[in-house]
């Protein structure tokens, strides 16, 4: 499907405000009379609270109030389960221990809030921290996932018999039987490191209670405004209509901003109501690292069973997944991992077990890539190890096992994060891979480039991997499309936007249907008073779900335009022509009625509308897919590495991606490039490090290294390979693309580094590499 706008590289409608500093982000919102909140956070990762004395802090000029857990009385309670447990999976065990808004009795991670200071300014609020006396009994911390799982471990939650947060086993076929028939079985233990979402804008929250109208207005840079509305209204005993959540411009989401029921969104509305003053909190960067959710952090124990020729007979992966101190966000991440281990390969017998474990660390929730990158890493690495063991090339083993287009759709039998049986619905997996090999010039590299470099004393390496990206899961999203009497069109949705170009791509869909100029379509996102149904921004589902709803709603409006115009023009509908911004009788341009005028006619002030006719050129539509749609692709990397310093340089990267039909190729490329930079960062620079006492050692950009412009590949090529089969998934034939780029860089780069040192037989068993750790791997093989 293409149109005047749909499918074209339209420049973004939202840019001008952002470029000129006019867009308002959370810290740009100022409400008269607002006070500032700052959270005193625990220095200890695990401790019993003996006493918190705030009396001195209250005496400080400019301090308005200070609260500890005790001050909230019955209002203090553990938060809701934001994502339910996986009851859909038989035999699954899940121990819910949800985040508390402020520590009471026990501290479970360093950075957990101990006191809330409300003051005239953030400066003064932080000053008051010095006045608060905190007396604790520190406890040994639980940090290591495998040790935490053992029965003898110190407990994060004293009332549980162990640190088991969940145990979920899924099996398709029979792995142990397959293993018996295998010629080769390869087993490895791999680490997947802990990384941060690290949006450039930190989190923020402003609660303003209007006592006269009994309405709570909230500004929050959340990916999930409707969840915030629900939890605030439930907590305060208000009707949902009494809580108005507005998302301002948001400086990036990447996952962690989906989390609700933290300190800010639970306690600040209550405090605002209590003090009858607006309260604003803006997180600082150190807090963001300490106390905003993060992801990855798994330990995989994998086994792959194969026939001599490289055919996979079975795969087993028992993995530990760190959920942090609480598990409010359910099992989205490890379930994503479980569905993505198979990735795009033919695995007839598959056994996978999640061991989700509580530790004294901040909660783990999705970060761009969300469990997918972990699963894909595990599979891709195991293929590499198996290939080496069997003397196959990494290319052969993949070619052999990649699913063919005619094998799709394929029900994998694994239940995913959406509690729906996963389906690999569409795509040309082998084709993606072959295209990638061509673009990266694999054969030439192996035959010419690499040997030539070797002669010159340079080390080059190549890595090529395949991946899938589960996207566009349910339950549903919706929107309302309205033609106003000015002729301008408005679309409202409960979805919220963090930079993904929603204001442009939804407008493109609608503008084509209604034949209006794209800049005449105003998209309003994330304001609960405008549209109050939906789940939130996650899992690369905006374009597919909201986009399809926009198509359906605008098709309904289009039908209304024709029926209203038919009456107004006095001709049958098939004689009505929809021109740009007006309707007329076919062949009679003089008869044109502007859309705005038609909108006014659809809302008559006198007379009677016919039964069954709804007023206005307006319609609402919802869309929920039967199952998610799986994006897919392949990535190739060529890198050079200085043998002496072990510093890699990314010479070239190619990504082949199938995200179905593109609404706007400019935006798709932007999403892929951004994702790739995150994948590069996750592999070569970024890493959250907790020490054995649960102290986060990387709470600043001095130590948490974000990928920079000079860290990007010298050449980055994007190839779109949109399979025909993608087109049948939904009316627009769309799949998500937000996370694709972040998934394959890890296994591709690691494979390339191994390849560069192929003569030394280096084997890399983790996702996050520094030159120092690469050096460590080299030393290890030298000492063998």
């Amino acid at each position, binding site marked *: 499907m293409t149109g005047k706008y749909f499918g074209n590289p339209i420049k973004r409608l939202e840019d001008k405000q952002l470029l000129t500093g006019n867009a308002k982000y959370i810290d740009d919102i100022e409400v008269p009379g607002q006070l500032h909140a700052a959270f005193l956070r625990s220095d200890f990762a695990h401790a019993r609270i003996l006493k918190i004395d705030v009396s001195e802090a209250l005496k400080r000029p400019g301090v308005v109030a200070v609260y500890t857990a005790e001050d909230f009385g019955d209002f203090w309670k553990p938060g809701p389960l934001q994502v339910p447990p996986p009851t859909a999976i038989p035999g699954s065990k899940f121990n819910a221990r949800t985040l508390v808004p402020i520590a009471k009795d026990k501290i479970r991670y360093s950075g957990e809030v101990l006191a809330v200071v409300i003051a005239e300014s*953030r*400066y003064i609020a*932080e*000053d008051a921290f010095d006045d608060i006396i905190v007396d604790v009994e520190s406890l040994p911390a639980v940090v290591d996932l495998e040790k935490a799982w053992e029965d003898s471990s110190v407990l994060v939650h004293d009332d549980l018999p162990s640190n088991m947060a969940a145990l979920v086993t899924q099996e398709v076929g029979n792995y142990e039987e397959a293993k018996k028939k295998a010629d080769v079985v390869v087993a490895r233990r791999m680490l997947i490191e802990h990384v941060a979402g690290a949006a450039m804008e930190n989190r923020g929250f402003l609660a303003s209670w209007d006592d006269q109208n009994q309405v709570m207005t909230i500004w929050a840079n959340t990916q999930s405004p409707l969840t915030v509305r629900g939890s605030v209204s439930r907590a305060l005993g208000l009707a949902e209509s009494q809580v108005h959540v507005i998302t301002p411009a948001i400086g990036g989401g990447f996952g962690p901003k989906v989390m609700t029921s933290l300190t800010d969104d639970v306690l600040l509305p209550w405090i605002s109501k209590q003090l009858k003053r607006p309260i604003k909190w803006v997180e*600082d*960067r*150190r807090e963001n690292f300490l106390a905003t959710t993060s992801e990855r952090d798994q330990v995989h124990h994998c086994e792959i069973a194969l026939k001599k020729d490289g055919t996979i007979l079975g795969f087993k992966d028992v993995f530990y997944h760190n959920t942090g101190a609480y598990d409010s966000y359910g099992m989205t991440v490890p379930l994503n991992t479980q569905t993505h281990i198979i990735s795009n390969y033919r695995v007839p017998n598959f056994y996978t077990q999640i061991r989700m474990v509580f530790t004294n660390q901040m909660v783990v929730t999705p970060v761009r890539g969300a469990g997918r990158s972990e699963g894909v890493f595990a599979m891709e690495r195991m293929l590499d190890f198996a290939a080496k063991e069997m003397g196959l090339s990494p290319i052969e083993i993949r070619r052999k096992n990649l699913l063919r287009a005619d094998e799709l759709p394929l029900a994998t039998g694994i239940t995913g994060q959406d509690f729906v049986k996963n389906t690999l619905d569409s795509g040309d997996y082998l084709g993606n891979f072959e295209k990638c090999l061509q673009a990266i010039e694999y054969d030439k590299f192996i035959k010419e480039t690499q040997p030539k470099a070797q002669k010159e004393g340079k080390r080059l390496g190549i890595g090529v991997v395949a991946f899938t990206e589960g996207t566009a899961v349910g339950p549903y999203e919706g929107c309302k499309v309205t033609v106003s009497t000015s002729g301008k069109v408005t679309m409202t949705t409960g979805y919220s936007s963090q930079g993904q170009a929603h204001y442009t791509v939804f407008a493109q869909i609608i503008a084509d249907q209604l034949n209006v100029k794209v800049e005449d379509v105003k998209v309003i996102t994330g304001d609960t008073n405008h549209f109050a149904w939906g789940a939130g921004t996650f899992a690369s589902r905006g374009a597919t779900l909201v986009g399809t709803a926009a198509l359906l709603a605008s098709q309904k409006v289009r039908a209304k335009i024709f029926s209203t115009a038919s009456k107004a023009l006095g001709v049958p509908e098939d004689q009505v022509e929809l021109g740009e911004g007006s309707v007329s009788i076919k062949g009679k341009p003089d008869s044109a009625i502007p859309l705005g005028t038609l909108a006014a006619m659809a809302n008559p002030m006198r007379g009677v509308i016919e039964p069954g006719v709804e007023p206005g050129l307006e319609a609402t539509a919802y869309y929920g897919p039967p199952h998610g749609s799986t994006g897919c692709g392949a990535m190739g990397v060529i890198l050079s590495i200085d043998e*002496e*310093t*072990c*510093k890699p340089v990314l010479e070239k990267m190619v990504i082949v991606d199938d995200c179905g039909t593109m609404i706007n190729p400019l935006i798709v490329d932007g999403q892929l490039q951004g994702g790739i930079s995150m994948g590069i960062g996750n592999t070569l*620079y970024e*890493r959250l*490090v907790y020490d054995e006492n649960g102290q986060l*050692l*990387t709470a*600043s950009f*001095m*130590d948490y*290294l974000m990928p*920079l412009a*000079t*860290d990007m590949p010298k050449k980055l090529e994007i190839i779109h390979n949109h399979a025909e089969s993608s087109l049948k998934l939904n009316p627009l034939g769309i799949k998500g693309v937000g996370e694709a780029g972040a998934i394959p860089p890890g296994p591709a780069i690691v494979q390339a580094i191994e390849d560069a040192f192929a003569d030394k037989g280096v084997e890399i068993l983790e996702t996050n590499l*520094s*030159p*120092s750790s690469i*050096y*460590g791997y080299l*030393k290890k093989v030298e000492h063998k």
Partner: protein
Amino acid sequence: MKPVNFDYYAPSSVDEALDTLAELGYDGKVLAGGQSLIAAMNFRMARPSALVDLNNVAELSYIKPTADGGLAIGTMTRVSTVEHNQDVIQRFPLLVEVAKFIAHPQIRRRGTFGGAIAHADPAGQLPSISMVMNMQALIKGKGTERWVAAPDLIIGPFMTVIEPNEMLAELVIKPHPPRTGAKYVQVSRQSGGYAQSAVASIVTLDENEICKDVHMVLMSVAEVPILSEKAREILIGNKPSKDAIEAVAEAASTSEIDPASDLHASADYRRSITRVLIVRSLTEAFERAKRGGK
């Protein structure tokens, strides 16, 4: 992340600044470019009770050629000014080479030459460079003035001999003898990031290609920058052969440094790359010396 409050003084002359520092004693802290200090204050790791801001002291910002062919650099001269100064480019290209590695352009435009040296960060480039160039530091107090050679200025991590009531006023660099070459090399994880190891060498050859003099500093591999004795022992009076340079690298990286393991690099790795960097730095420095410093 907001700093604690402090008292603030913005003198407009050196004398006024010294009076203020004398009055404040231990409570006073000099604010130069502030690119390290203000970051530490924002984290509330630094909580000085009074700052004496030298940014309005125009007389501390200059680059003056000295009669002997060297340079005198006022403490408040911005790093980017040094980086782009024609006299510096002509006389001490090493400084220009190093400057490009110091954080990012925005920091270099505000950060000062003297401030960075007085900060004595073991991972900072300029303290090490001040040592390897044997810069002479002019330290002023109220009614006092003393000259200290940079190697004696820095006594520990973030520690110098500058007293709280004193300040670093000027750094003087002597000209290099003819046939002197210099080279700075570092390994850091990213551009502008802290080095895991860095080496700067300044070498002088005589007309027979014999090493007349060598100064080499090893940075980020001990709690203070290390001026290599081994380099002098092995190279001076000898031809700087590949073997001789290898011998320096081996000796210095095994016996002169004490690297720590941290989040970004193991001690082993640091030792290994220091060895590599010594070879690279010395080799290129000697090449440059042969070409008359270019």
